């Protein structure tokens, strides 16, 4: 493998992690001022802030790896839809509160072991980002798991809504475990984490929490795919138009 190929792989991998974090951060930010209670409004905004912080570190690093002078703002705010490689799960619209919580729970239950394993990456920067993000993911998992239990094992209404969220989001979870050439090569080199190795732990977390929440885990069936290759759901363009508005309207704008 040539250095150029390795650089391209590392750029692609780092950018995916960054896109996942940025897009979920953006979605959570949409709750600001609209959450069901004041505490939860602050909670969702805080989780959004953690994801945006992770995205900033990852975008900055991706720009360095690429070596073409792009910084975090250019990577986040000036790429078109087809160049975003986040998984479809994180871009799903907020829906009701149950949908937002279940989306967070499925994602954080996956990211916690991923960050933990990535701490051992041979890439020092990814390992350093992972060490910080792991602690944040643990908090997000705990918060979303507690809410999942409260909603699932709550009233008839909250149970129905939570179950509907599980059923609706389930087809988007298969993509978390997809492996393509980029992941395969980087995992073999000790840089990336093979997501297939996280599947048992992810399932165990889900079973533990959903059981307590009296929610049913749908059977594995057909899974949605496309995010990692830039094919997104219908709502994604609308998300980008809001997220990228400032840099598009005033190019190069800084705080």
């Amino acid at each position, binding site marked *: 493998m040539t250095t150029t190929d390795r650089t391209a792989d590392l750029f692609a991998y780092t950018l995916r992690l960054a896109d996942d974090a940025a897009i979920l951060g953006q979605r959570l930010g949409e709750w600001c001022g609209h959450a069901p209670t004041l*505490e*939860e409004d*602050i*909670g969702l*905004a*805080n*989780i959004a*802030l*953690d*994801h*945006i*912080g*992770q995205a*900033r*570190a990852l975008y900055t690093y991706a720009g360095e790896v690429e070596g073409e002078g792009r910084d975090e703002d250019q990577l986040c705010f000036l790429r078109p839809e087809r160049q975003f490689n986040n998984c479809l799960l994180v871009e799903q619209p907020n829906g009701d509160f149950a949908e937002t919580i279940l989306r967070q729970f499925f994602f954080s239950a996956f990211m916690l072991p991923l960050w933990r394993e990535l701490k051992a990456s041979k890439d*020092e*920067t990814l*390992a*350093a*980002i992972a*060490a*910080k*993000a792991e*602690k*944040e993911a*643990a*908090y997000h*998992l*705990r*918060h979303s*798991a*507690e809410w999942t239990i409260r909603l699932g094992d709550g009233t008839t209404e909250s149970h129905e809504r939570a179950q509907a969220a599980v059923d609706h989001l389930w087809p988007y979870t298969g993509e978390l475990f997809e492996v393509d050439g980029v992941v395969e090569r980087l995992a073999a080199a000790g840089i990336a984490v093979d997501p297939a190795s996280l599947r048992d732990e992810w399932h165990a*977390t889900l079973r533990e929490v959903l059981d307590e929440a009296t929610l049913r885990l749908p059977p594995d069936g057909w899974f949605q795919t496309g995010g990692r290759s830039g094919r997104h759901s219908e709502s994604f363009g609308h998300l980008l138009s809001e997220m990228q508005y400032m840099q598009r309207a005033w190019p190069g704008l800084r*705080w």
Partner: protein
Amino acid sequence: MGSRLHDIAGESARRRAFEVAAQVPDPEVPVLTIGDLGVLRDVRIASDGTVEVDITPTYTGCPAMAVFTMDIETALLAEGFGKVRVNTVLSPAWTTDWLSEDAREKLRAYGIAPPAGKASRRALFGDDEVACPRCGSHDTEKVSEFGSTACKALWRCRSCAEPFDYFKCH
């Protein structure tokens, strides 16, 4: 000999710069300085006289980082240092374990419960045991996992009925 004198002068300037930077207060928890927090990691003086300051974020998205950077620059420039560059380093990851006993006492006196226990030992569920910073009672309850800043959660004391901020174990 000349070179050694130069080294000594350089080291004394470095120490002075470190002390000045360490005194910069946290904009969100003003009783603590970045020295107390462990956010300040290193200070070096480059050959062209630029003061290089390394800081590490508490939370990756902590909005206070931009203010830290500005305040460090301002403090060092005011002390007569010509050029200042503030770098962000991520490793080793910041932890509340770095807060000194002195820093914890300052937090308590300010009305914020300091982090309880070791950051490394946290289960998926189960709460820390947090003492009320006002009356010292352990009969407290969590109101919300998230508080006024990324590093705090909201708690309430059942003995004296006061709500209080808890500096999360991280």
